[in-house]
């Protein structure tokens, strides 16, 4: 096996492991975080600070009886969770998680696939995830589930528009949709105010686009305030009403991994991706001075670390928002999507175009 092949497999393994590790971590963060926000303590008995609670939850899911109700459409009912979970893993393929490492032998790219279409790939694969939900709701052969998947379909169509349009401005500024190039360009300095260098992050260039993107991403991942497909109070559990044990866990996994990918996309597009966090250059300097890693290795390591930190912060924001903001009503959701987000996204494209034409950006 050549070095390239081995390196490719290594990258895939790292990304898969990372995404799988997200699930138990987020399980813990979600449960403890929600508890602390609601002035409770949350699960704190298993292990230090309740850290092993996630393991217990997983064990419970594994050993629970896997029961298929009689009235479901067996075939689609069984494949639906997998259709929900597989695209969420696939999306991460084009996201770079560290800068290019260069040494005498050549370049090493820390990105599974450097596709020409970049971000479009992410959107297209992410749009497949909805079929898991639709299929689950329909195959469950139950009115609540069907309503859940109907809502999911409507919501997905409405918010995919503003999701796509909100990054057009960004693509116009960076002249690329390749995530690697976008990230690399975000390392430049935008302004220097009182000696503090403000990097050319997307969030400073496209504040409106950023807000639209974040809201649409929340809608795409079916997280509160947009979790109408599963709205407990009106639809019991919506599309995963008939699922239990490991199959339900797969839906939950899909949700958490979607969250991770969404956070990674937000970071890559608007927060400089793997660009070092402020203060990280100091760490890089000291690590280089120690000389444990090959030259440049410390930089790559710290870049990956910065990226993971940014993702972690955004994952926390996902949880934080979930336990702060109540769910939308369905007509409010549609109004927001079509009458607010969509025009604003178009406006953003227009403003960006005018600014680029005037030479400001």
């Amino acid at each position, binding site marked *: 096996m050549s070095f390239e092949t081995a390196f490719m497999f290594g990258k895939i393994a790292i990304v898969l492991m990372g995404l799988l590790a997200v699930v138990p971590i987020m399980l813990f963060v979600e449960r403890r975080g929600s508890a602390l926000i609601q002035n409770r303590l949350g699960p704190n008995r298993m292990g230090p600070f309740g850290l092993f609670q996630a393991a217990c939850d997983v064990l419970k899911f594994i050993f629970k009886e896997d029961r298929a109700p009689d009235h479901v459409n067996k075939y689609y009912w069984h494949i639906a969770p997998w259709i929900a979970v597989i695209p969420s893993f696939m999306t991460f393929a084009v996201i770079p998680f560290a800068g290019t490492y260069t040494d005498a032998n050549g370049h090493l790219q820390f990105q599974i696939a450097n596709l*020409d*279409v970049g971000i479009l790939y992410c959107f297209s694969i992410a749009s*497949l995830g909805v*079929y898991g939900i639709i299929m689950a709701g*329909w195959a469950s052969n139950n009115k609540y589930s069907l309503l859940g998947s109907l809502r999911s379909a409507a919501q997905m169509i409405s918010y995919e528009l503003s999701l796509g349009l909100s990054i057009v401005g960004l693509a116009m500024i960076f002249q690329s949709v390749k995530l690697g190039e976008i990230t690399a360009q975000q390392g430049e300095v935008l302004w220097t105010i009182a000696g503090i260098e403000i990097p050319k992050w997307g969030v400073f260039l496209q504040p409106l686009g950023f807000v639209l993107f974040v809201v649409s991403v929340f809608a795409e991942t079916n997280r509160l305030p947009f979790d109408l497909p599963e709205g407990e109070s009106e639809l019991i559990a919506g599309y995963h009403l008939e699922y239990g044990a490991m199959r339900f866990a797969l839906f939950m996994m899909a949700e958490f991994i979607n969250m991770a990918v969404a956070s990674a996309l937000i970071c890559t597009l608007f927060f400089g991706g793997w660009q070092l966090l402020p203060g990280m250059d100091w760490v890089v300097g000291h690590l280089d001075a120690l000389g444990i890693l090959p030259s440049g290795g410390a930089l790559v390591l710290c870049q990956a670390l910065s990226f993971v930190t940014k993702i972690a912060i955004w994952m926390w924001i996902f949880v934080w928002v979930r336990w702060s903001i109540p769910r939308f009503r369905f007509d409010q959701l549609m109004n927001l999507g079509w009458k607010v987000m969509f025009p604003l996204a178009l406006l953003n494209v227009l403003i960006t175009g005018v600014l680029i034409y005037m030479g400001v950006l």
Partner: protein
Amino acid sequence: MTGSMIAFAAFSTIAIVGSLLVIFRRTPVASAFALVLVFFSFSGLYALMGAHLIAALQILVYTGAIMVLFVFVIMLLNQDSPITDIKESSLLFKGIAGLACVGMVTVLINAALRVSGLAPTNIYTDQKIEELGGNLRVISELLFTDHLFQFELTSFLLLGAIVATIALSKRQRKGGVS
């Protein structure tokens, strides 16, 4: 047999089987899901040809938006019970369908035989596209320079369609309230 050959075989088999399923499944929603599978394998085929943009757009537009809408409408009409009362269609319809089929196949074979003579393959080789900065850049530059008029015309067509749909579906009621 290379990896791309295996992938081609796999995707085309899935596409053919999927299209057969679209026709032969009795449940509308199941047919729609099969169509999703067909679109997905089409996009795989496009990706194999190096047309990544078309592949991504195929999934994004057809699978991600249009088919979701299809499934949505089918579910909304609650057509999830299998259709069993299919009537035998008349000989005339069968004849028309057969003629259409033959015509379509002829066009396809004709196109396949002439494909080497089509102009763009000569100008835009894989290498040339790579030099010009990738699929997306080439297509967008063509759209916004040489084919700008047609592009804008298409958008006007779509706009007209949207306006017409709204005008049809949102008729003024008698009280003046829309």
